């Protein structure tokens, strides 16, 4: 129970003492800073997470032993109809790509070598063999292909055409990502490759490869069906090293937004890659080789059902693997990107630590103002005691005061934060246009707009945190007030 005089006096004191406005201003400023800075940072991080999410399938069955075939596992996985909506085979390997038509070698004036060694410089590629028809059912392949040219066109001049390989009506051609006959014919002529005399007689036969847009950043804009040589080396099931090469054509570029994926990955028809690895699809003894199986789960799957489903799938797949195989993994999208996401999360934690210090100093402001209030109101405390105020009630005056300062500051800060976030980009643009000042350097984010993502849960955390912190710091002066000897307090000058 809070005695009626406590809130009454608390409010009167706050209203009549302007110094408390500083406490409110301090909390407001701190809350505002925490919201805006975190909104930008969260916006950035959740942008990354969103991109990582769209680049990654719901579940990925991976860590499979060598020479695992797709069909048997597919049946077992798709049998789990309560969970699984679709599956697609993936074959991960590494290879090298070399453009057939060498561009003129020019003097490069810009720093080229990077410390993060992304392997694109020399045509290294993480080859991901996919079945385009099945792939569309499990991942955003189609939207990746739309986004690729968009990302490039935003940054560089040049003709970044969008790929239409997925719209090819002929299933055989689509699964090979082949170009249209006339396009491939023109590309062959351009590169001095053997081609039919006239375009009508030409049948496209080069499998297509899809590049991540970050690779295009380095190769420069590529025309449709530009031929490449693809070289692959592997140790086969006979433990013999073999290598093979094939001529492929550039079928388009994609962007998932996942930097590491877009830099390294090259998508190509899984059959092409299997053939390069020495597996003939016409050979009945051959394996329909996969290293991973991408799984899309039903949209109505709850988080707990997903956890249970992962274990179920893992057991089902493991049962089909040769006895003694190391355990395979079924990874959700976060687990597939564990290292990358945790690096991002650590940076965010660091920023939040700094913001916490801001809040701490703001709490000091509340403490200072309340402490002074107690010191200056010693006589009032005696009066309250004399007319029957209980120690708890007297303490509550100052506790309520602190609470009010915290709450009003937090509310104002949240209001200001919401407004700032709303108008962050216009303000940043205006500042840059008029004063060449950038609050948030865009180059840092490599983005058009400053991302902003104010999560309601963060607002709640900051607001409640500010009020709690205010209560905690108010507790010390309020205890001091409640323990004061009333007789001494009355005679205080």
């Amino acid at each position, binding site marked *: 129970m809070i005695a009626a005089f406590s809130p009454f006096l608390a409010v009167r004191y706050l209203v009549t003492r302007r*110094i408390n406005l*500083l406490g409110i*201003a*301090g909390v407001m*400023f*701190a809350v505002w*800073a925490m919201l805006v*800075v975190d909104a930008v940072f969260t916006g950035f991080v959740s942008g990354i997470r969103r991109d*990582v999410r769209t680049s*990654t399938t719901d579940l990925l069955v*991976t860590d499979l032993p*060598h020479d695992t075939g797709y069909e048997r596992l597919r049946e077992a996985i798709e049998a789990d109809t309560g969970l699984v909506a679709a599956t697609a085979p993936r074959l991960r390997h*590494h290879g*090298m790509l070399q453009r057939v038509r*060498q561009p003129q070698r020019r*003097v490069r004036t810009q*720093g*080229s070598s*990077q*410390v*993060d*060694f992304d*392997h694109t410089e*020399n045509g*290294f590629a*993480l080859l991901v063999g996919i079945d385009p028809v099945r792939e569309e059912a499990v991942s955003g392949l189609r939207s990746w292909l739309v986004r690729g040219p968009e990302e490039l066109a935003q940054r560089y001049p040049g003709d970044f055409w969008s790929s239409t390989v997925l719209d090819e009506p002929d299933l055989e051609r689509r699964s090979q990502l082949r170009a249209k006959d006339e396009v491939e014919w023109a590309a062959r002529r351009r590169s001095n490759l053997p081609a039919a005399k006239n375009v009508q007689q030409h049948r496209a036969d080069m499998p297509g490869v899809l590049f991540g847009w970050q690779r295009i950043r380095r190769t420069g804009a590529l025309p449709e069906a530009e031929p490449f*040589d693809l*070289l692959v*080396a592997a*140790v086969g099931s006979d*433990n013999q*090293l073999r*290598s093979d*090469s094939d001529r492929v054509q550039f079928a388009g570029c994609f962007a998932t937004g*996942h930097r*590491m*994926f877009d830099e390294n*990955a090259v998508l190509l028809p899984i059959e092409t890659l299997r053939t390069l690895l020495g597996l003939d699809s016409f050979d009945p003894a051959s394996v329909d080789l996969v*290293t991973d199986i991408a799984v899309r789960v039903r949209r109505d799957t709850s988080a707990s059902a997903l956890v249970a489903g992962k274990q179920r799938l893992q057991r089902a797949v493991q049962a089909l693997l040769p006895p003694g195989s190391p355990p395979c993994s079924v*990874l959700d999208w976060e*687990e*597939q990107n*564990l*290292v990358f*996401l*945790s*690096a991002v999360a650590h940076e965010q*934690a660091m*920023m939040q630590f*700094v913001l916490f210090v*801001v809040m*701490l*100093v*703001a709490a*000091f*402001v509340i403490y200072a103002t309340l*402490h*002074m209030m107690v010191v200056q109101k010693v006589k009032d405390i005696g009066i309250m005691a004399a007319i029957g105020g209980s120690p708890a009630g007297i303490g509550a005056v100052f506790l309520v005061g602190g609470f009010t300062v915290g709450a009003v500051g937090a509310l104002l800060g949240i209001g200001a934060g919401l407004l700032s976030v709303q108008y962050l980009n216009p303000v940043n643009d205006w500042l840059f246009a008029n004063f060449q000042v950038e609050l*948030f350097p865009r180059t*840092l984010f490599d983005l058009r707009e400053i991302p902003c993502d104010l999560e309601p849960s963060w607002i709640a955390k900051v607001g409640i945190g500010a009020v709690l912190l205010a209560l905690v710091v108010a507790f010390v002066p309020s205890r001091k007030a409640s323990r004061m000897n009333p007789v001494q307090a009355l005679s205080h000058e």
Partner: protein
Amino acid sequence: MYRLFLAIRYLLTRPINLLGMAGITLSVWALIVVVSLFSGFLAVVERHVHEAGADIVVSALPAWTRWSTLAPALADDPNVAATAPRLLHYGLLLRPGHRPPPAPLPGRGALHGGDQPFLFLMGIDAAQEAQVTGFAAWVRDAEIPAELRAADVAAPLAMRDGVPTVLIGLERMQREGLRPGDAVLLTTARLVEDEAGQKHPSKVQVPLRVAGAYKTAHSGFDGNNVFVDIAVLRQHLHDNRTEFVQEVAVRAHDATTLADTADRLQRALTRVTERNNTSYGVVQTWREKNAQFLGSVQHQRGLLKIVLVVIMVVAAFLMLATLSMMVTEKISDIGILTAMGGTPTGVTMVFLACGLVITFVGVLVGTVTGIVTAVYLEEVRQAVRWATGIDLFPVDVYNLARVPCTIDPLWLLQVAGMAMATGFVVSALPVLRAARHDPLVSLRGI
């Protein structure tokens, strides 16, 4: 004199002023510690980059460059201490009879890509390389177990059983279970011209023996690079052209004037490689070569600085609050002091002195504790992790042994100056109010 005396008395009798001091201290501390951490991180990254890449690198050399003409042209420069030729290539190192797992998923493997199967091949002359980089120390690193060490660390790339050898990063050696003497097969490709003048990639396979492990401070470098003798690459990839060179690593006498040296070397290079009025080849200091990457770390530090200044603003609020309250309380003293013979404006300076003492002590304590914390940051990190389980700076993500930290005196000065300026402004505000106060009012005791 009485001003400072009174100022200090006022401060000592009012512990709440310590809070204003604490705010300044905290903000100065945070500005120093966090920025030092990032500067340290930047310095570590720079050092790793620098060590792995020599002071100046001459790259993108045209095919007609001859080492015997290029080397003297470069060595002519007064600031060039040593040069070493390099050939660069790429490939896979596979162990016959062992099937490696597929390349890791992007985002699940190491961020620097050091666990990918691809490798950069650096063809070097071990003796000359040791003159320009820390190569000699890399093969002798104390962390390399004896059984993984090259047989002869003085000549680590010496042939073994008549087979050329390769130096591999320690982590990769351990991950793949390789031992010195193991046979590996280097698989790569080179472009070969056919009869029609078309260039085609052609497979190249070179049997090698593992020489041993090397270790630099940067596992990203170790994971991605292997060293072979330059003659091996010349033989298998460049038709035994003994003069062929693609990159030259340069060590300078004076590392502070690298940019000027690079300019001079660029002119010298032009004289050697110029053909048809076109110049070829690029000279870059290690900093230029990695400008983009280093820039991103610098940007992060800049962003953090903005956020940290917010702390100082809140600390200013705090000081303003405590000083205003003191002025409110002590404003009656102005009358007394005036009566005792002080001038009213002189008396108000007492309050300014209070604010400046608070600021000064706050800055001093903050700077000292900031420096101490920064120096013992690793111990602090371990203590925090032990007490709360929170890892403030994941050293293992960045492959560092301890939390890096570099204290920049200029930044210390900036922080102190900024804090003093802030302290002055927030002290001046209540003092202005006190100055406007009529001393007689307080004497009348209203």
